[in-house]
């Protein structure tokens, strides 16, 4: 009995030792020279492997930068800070003036404000619901509210508010764009971090149609264009949009918007 224990110990130990030695020898023969900067760049990157840069994870991007001369500003979670530090390692000048972008849901329609086509009781997933007549909301462009974006968000920046619509925390958002990809209606759009107002509507239907199915939808009345001419508002396809490069005040437009769909982000609720 004691011998069996000893045999077991010795045989596994010897086998492991021999294989280890063989591998150590093989490692010397098959050694691959790696650029040291790859590890340095990888150390600077955030390491959350979100894939926003288009490479498979942070190590893939680090390799891309060093070996394939990839752009060093592609890491949106890291932003200007990380880009600057990569620039130091790679000895490149970086334009640090690019503003951080964040995602935001451009819809504040809830079950109270919008009319419904039918009662949905299927899989709790936006894409699944979207295959059934484009979702239960009469509006085909709005937020379906089942939160597929919440599931894909790597940093839990998206929350369902008590009012039933989705809101994205701009402090947490890393602009990886995963929610934009998963959303079937395209209601999530990128806005600059400093943006204070959004047009919380995505409907390009005519004003009369929007008014019938949603009480907080943009009807394309152009009041915002008139009241805040400096605010960068533009109405196209019966939907207002904001050019965030315009510096003027947008307070007037928020005030007069008849559907109240131009909202201040910090007081959104």
């Amino acid at each position, binding site marked *: 009995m004691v011998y069996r224990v000893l*045999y077991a110990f010795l045989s596994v130990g010897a086998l492991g030792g021999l294989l280890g030695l063989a591998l150590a020898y*093989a490692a010397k023969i098959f050694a691959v020279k790696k650029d040291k900067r790859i590890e340095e760049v990888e150390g600077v990157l955030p390491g959350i492997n979100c894939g926003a840069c288009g490479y498979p994870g942070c190590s893939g991007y680090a390799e891309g930068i060093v070996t394939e001369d990839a752009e060093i500003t592609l890491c949106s979670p890291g932003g200007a800070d990380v880009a600057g530090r990569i620039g130091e390692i790679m000895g490149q000048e970086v334009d640090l003036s690019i503003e951080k972008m964040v995602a935001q849901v451009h819809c504040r329609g809830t079950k109270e404000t919008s009319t419904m086509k039918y009662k949905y009781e299927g899989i709790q997933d936006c894409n699944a619901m979207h295959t059934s007549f484009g979702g239960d909301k009469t509006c085909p462009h709005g937020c379906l509210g089942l939160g597929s974006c919440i599931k894909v968000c790597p940093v839990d920046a998206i929350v369902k508010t008590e009012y039933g619509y989705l809101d994205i925390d701009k402090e947490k958002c890393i602009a990886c764009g995963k929610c934009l990809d998963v959303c079937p209606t395209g209601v999530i759009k990128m806005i600059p971090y400093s943006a204070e107002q959004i047009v919380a509507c995505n409907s390009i239907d005519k004003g009369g149609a929007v008014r019938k199915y949603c009480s907080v939808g943009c009807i394309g009345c152009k009041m915002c264009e008139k009241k805040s001419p400096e605010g960068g508002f533009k109405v196209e396809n019966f939907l207002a949009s904001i050019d965030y490069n315009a510096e003027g005040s947008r307070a007037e437009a928020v005030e007069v918007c008849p559907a109240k769909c131009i909202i201040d982000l910090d007081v959104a609720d």
Partner: protein
Amino acid sequence: MTYIGIIITFVFINNFILTQFLGLCPFIGVSKNVESAVGMGFAVTFVMSIAALATWAIQNFILIPLNIEFLQTITFILMIAALVQFVEMFIQKSSPSLYKALGIYLPLITTNCAVLGIALIAVRSEYNAIESFVAGLAAGLGFLLAILLMSTIREKLDAEWVPRPLRGTPIAFITGGLMALAFMAFDKALLNNLIG
């Protein structure tokens, strides 16, 4: 059983992926394009055939003489891990692009149950050294066949219209299921017809 019998058994009748459902992780994970699928297939084939031979040696020269067969799993895994490590080094040196394409699935061959599966099946079937090697080779070729078929289908699927919720992995699962159904056609009767 003859060698031809072993080969037909492990490539078609008991195909590791489509009949025994072993080693499904790389089957779904690395079957997006033909090139990396074939690379993966050959890597697994190499590991499986060498592992079957090496574990036969361990079983017959170490475990049975010392009466410590209970160490089968741990010693086999040790052997497989070392082999995989070796394959990884070799591929990294000889083909960095393939190394990149295989990614995490390459070290994961270590825990691929198909590899441990062939080692245990060969031991249980009491094959001799050459039969074990042939069984490992055939099982690896079966894996290669399955992943090659899957990757060509998936490359064609990329160009086809697929309902949005089914795109990517879900349609691959359905495809795999249909392929497994097709492989049910290969059974023992086929073997008997072919080689009597």
